[in-house]
């Protein structure tokens, strides 16, 4: 991340100088800051709501029951999660929310899952293989129906906007699988 950020900043400034976009570049820094505040405020609301709901799950013990139910499925991908750990529930709920296109639930539940996975982390501040698998699954975007895309297509008079559903499903399934393969390949090389 460090290298990537350094490259992005340096390349941007060099380009801004050569293309005469200096004013736009400086303005964009403040736009970025503003966007970060807006997104954080939005997240503050929905994350707190979901932490409230998951707290009830914890206090009632339901979180362990759901974990027990989905353990066989989740532990195939996440090898080092012990017993009926709450992280299994958080991961399951995040994946379900993603499948049904519920972004406002998926991100908070994903944060919850990261916290639970971090509770198993022996070396704080360093990423674990389970976290990597979880993030790769999330960046591969598994979604049954891309509602926002269909909405825009329909809005501009596409004759059959639902026609994108099947190709999207195929594309997203293949890319999610290749993403996990890429991760496995990197894991072999950098162990």
């Amino acid at each position, binding site marked *: 991340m460090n290298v990537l950020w350094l490259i992005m900043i340096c390349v941007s400034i060099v380009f*801004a100088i050569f293309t005469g976009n200096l004013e736009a570049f400086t303005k964009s820094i403040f736009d970025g800051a503003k966007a970060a505040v807006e997104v954080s405020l939005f997240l503050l609301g929905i994350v707190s709501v979901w932490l409230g709901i998951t707290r009830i799950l914890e206090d009632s013990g339901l979180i362990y029951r759901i974990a027990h139910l989905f353990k066989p499925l989740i532990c195939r991908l996440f090898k080092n999660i012990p017993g009926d750990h709450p992280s299994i529930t958080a991961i399951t709920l995040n994946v379900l929310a993603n499948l049904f296109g*519920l972004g406002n639930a998926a991100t908070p539940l994903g944060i919850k899952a990261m916290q639970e996975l971090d509770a198993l982390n022996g070396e704080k501040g360093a990423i674990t293989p389970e976290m990597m698998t979880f993030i*790769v699954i*999330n960046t591969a975007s598994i979604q049954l129906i891309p509602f926002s895309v269909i909405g825009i297509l329909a809005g501009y008079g596409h004759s059959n906007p639902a026609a994108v559903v099947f190709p999207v499903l195929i594309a997203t399934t293949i890319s999610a699988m290749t993403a996990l393969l890429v991760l496995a390949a990197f894991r072999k090389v*950098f162990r």
Partner: protein
Amino acid sequence: MIKQVEYISLLIIPLFILFTVLYGTFKKVRVYDSFVVGAKEGPAIILKIFPYLLTIFVAIKGFQASGAFDFVRDAFYSLFAFMGVPIEAVSMAIVKPLSGSASTALFADIVKTTGPESLATQMSAIIMGSAETTFYVLAVYLGAVGIRKTRYLVPVCLVADFIGIVVAVIVTKWFF
């Protein structure tokens, strides 16, 4: 089929909350107090995420505004042109991992300018539906637990994104 899935999507959160609250009450949990205790953790997490989000957003906005983005897009365009990929789809492929709101705006613009049934629209639709805002996900999830050592995660995500775009192009060519 679409309608049914849409209905399930609408139903899933309310039903889940109802079930959670009822099960909690059945297990003698004071659900109101429980919810408040959970929600109290929210601000601390957001405070942790905020600096990560800010750092990555500044870099992304600067990258777009400086003209570096256009250069990268043109470079990728010359790479993909022989496959018959429209330049609009190339823009989409680069914007999507960077920014969710920008990609939605771009997609609407592509549909408007090239028509709802053009190849550029179809391909962008598939990229839009099958790719994720990688940088946002990385900033939020890594920020939430303060991960500094990411090892090979970022290269994996970038390679996976690239393959995802190639897959989207092939799938579009195959279907349309």
